């Protein structure tokens, strides 16, 4: 019981270390997943920091073509960052639909898992075809079946009702964590050709850009900004280029900072745990003074007694380490299952945690053990 209390410090320390490390690892894993979903080399560009807008400041369809032409291989996709919302009804079923306005080739840079039919293609964009690609949940809710290709739905686009032909159904495969972060959206997803959704003289506020894999994302971004600013007779500051990569670095930085803060707390509790070990070992050495005397009378040398007590304190804190590791993993697993975060537990961190707690035991056990080992045999034997 007393040893359990002693080990508590170590247990708390080690379990928080384990928890932090695996939360950190898990978060990183999840974040990687999320950014893979969003697209690692994806960037957004938008009009920024302009006091008096001129109509020419925005991005026109012609501008998109010019930029595509100019940057050729450096970018793999360029489209407006736009989506429209509309209620859709088929018989008694109504669905709130979010229509993402895309250029052709979006499915080349983003994974779109088609279940039926096809994705928006170049001819749809060129001909401004009145077509739509539905997410399977929308299809299911509207038609009570997934394969809704060939059906027509009526949606509101820019205040006009339009009849769109469903040419494909896809399945959204984004990570559960991302959906969790975004919250329960009442809207179902879909894709439409952007040329159909907006008039040809429409000025877009933002652009959705994918940079080629082998290109430095921010360099290309700066080039595009300069090019567009020049085109629009504006300065570079008037356009903002924002990459998912930067975003990820910031987030990783925040997670890292948090880890350091909690690691400090863990270090303190390990220190407290170590002092607890030292304390109980000192008590134990005093209580067993007579035993030490007897052992010395039987021929125990200084190092025999030293090792005996060092092994004891190392064992004590190693047990604390093992219990701490298990409760740490348990805690993280529990927390992970509540927010459905996939948990990563690095086996190396377990080994390090247990080894580290043993080192704490040896370190803080050394002074009491030394004290025991130096005991004078006759005084130790006389101890009551």
């Amino acid at each position, binding site marked *: 019981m007393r040893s359990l209390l002693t080990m508590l410090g170590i247990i708390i320390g080690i379990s928080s270390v384990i928890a932090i490390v695996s939360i950190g690892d898990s978060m990183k894993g999840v974040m990687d997943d999320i950014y893979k979903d969003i697209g690692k080399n994806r960037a957004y560009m938008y009009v920024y920091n302009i006091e008096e807008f001129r109509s020419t400041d925005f991005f026109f369809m012609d501008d998109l073509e010019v930029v595509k032409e100019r940057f050729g291989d450096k970018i793999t996709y360029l489209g407006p960052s736009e989506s429209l919302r509309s209620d859709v009804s088929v018989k008694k079923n109504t669905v709130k639909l979010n229509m993402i306005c895309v250029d052709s080739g979006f499915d080349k840079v983003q994974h779109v898992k088609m279940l039926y039919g096809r994705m928006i293609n170049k001819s749809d964009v060129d001909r401004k075809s009145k077509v739509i690609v539905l997410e399977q949940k929308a299809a299911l809710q509207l038609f009570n079946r997934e394969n809704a290709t060939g059906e027509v739905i009526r949606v509101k686009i820019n205040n006009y009702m339009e009849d769109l032909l469903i040419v494909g159904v896809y399945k959204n495969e984004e990570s559960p964590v991302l959906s969790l972060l975004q919250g329960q959206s009442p809207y179902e997803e879909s894709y439409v050709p952007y040329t159909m959704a907006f008039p040809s003289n429409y000025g877009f506020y933002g652009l959705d850009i994918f940079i080629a894999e082998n290109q430095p994302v921010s360099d290309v971004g700066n080039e595009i900004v300069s090019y567009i600013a020049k085109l629009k007779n504006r300065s570079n500051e008037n356009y903002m280029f924002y990459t998912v990569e930067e975003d990820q670095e910031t987030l990783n930085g925040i997670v890292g900072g948090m880890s350091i803060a909690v690691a400090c707390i863990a270090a303190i509790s390990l220190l407290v745990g170590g002092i607890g070990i030292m304390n109980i070992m000192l008590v134990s050495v005093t209580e067993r003074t*007579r*035993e030490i005397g*007897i*052992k*010395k*009378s*039987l*021929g*125990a*040398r*200084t*190092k*025999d007694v030293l090792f005996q007590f060092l092994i004891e304190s190392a064992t004590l804190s190693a047990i604390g380490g093992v219990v701490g590791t298990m409760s740490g993993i348990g805690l993280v697993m529990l927390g992970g299952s509540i927010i459905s975060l996939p948990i990563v537990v690095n086996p190396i961190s377990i080994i390090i945690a247990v080894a580290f707690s043993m080192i704490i035991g040896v370190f803080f056990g050394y002074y009491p053990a030394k004290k025991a080992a130096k005991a004078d*045999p*006759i005084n130790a*034997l006389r101890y009551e």
Partner: protein
Amino acid sequence: MSKMISIKNLNKIYKNGSVEVHALKDVNLEIEHGEFIAIMGQSGSGKSTLMNIIGCLDRPTSGEYLLDGIDISKQEQDDLSLIRNKKIGFVFQAFNLIPRTNILRNVELPMIYAKVKSSKRKQRSMELLEKVGLGDRVNHLPNELSGGQKQRVAIARALANTPPIILADEPTGNLDTQSSEDIMEIFKSLNNDGTSVILVTHEPEIARFADRVIVFRDGAIIEDSQKEGVLK
């Protein structure tokens, strides 16, 4: 052949703050291999003090103590541990078994410090415990035994490394007559096999087993007689 124990002008003064106790005063004593000695004397006369010095547990304040020709006052603590381990077996009035440790393990301890191999250790411990009549109790803990049984374990443990000397400070002090008798029989047979036995006792019936009786008073030897001398 040199004497086993040679003590010259030995003094022991305990200092407790300003109070000084002169526990041994100019003690001279020689002991041969194979002797069976009983040390007697009033309480506080210095018997235990001498035993502790002979057993290399304590150091004299002044004077010379040679054990098998080795000057004990010149030895380091760890060297004294080695000497105790190899040459001396202790039997105390309070038994001094290690608590919460079974008696087999207790008997093994001196052999562990002597780095005897585990299998040999076990075998010898078993033999010793059988010899003292506790062969069927090897897995018992000390607190599960009677006083006489505990003392027999202590003797078995004292014999583990076959030391030439057994030091017993009032070994029968806590035992009834029958148990005392049994213990003394064990000492007698050990002595017959060549082991030197030095024991402290208050009881003449116990001292009767010895061949030589040394009597202390106020830290000095007042009588030292071979058998039949002191016994009335």
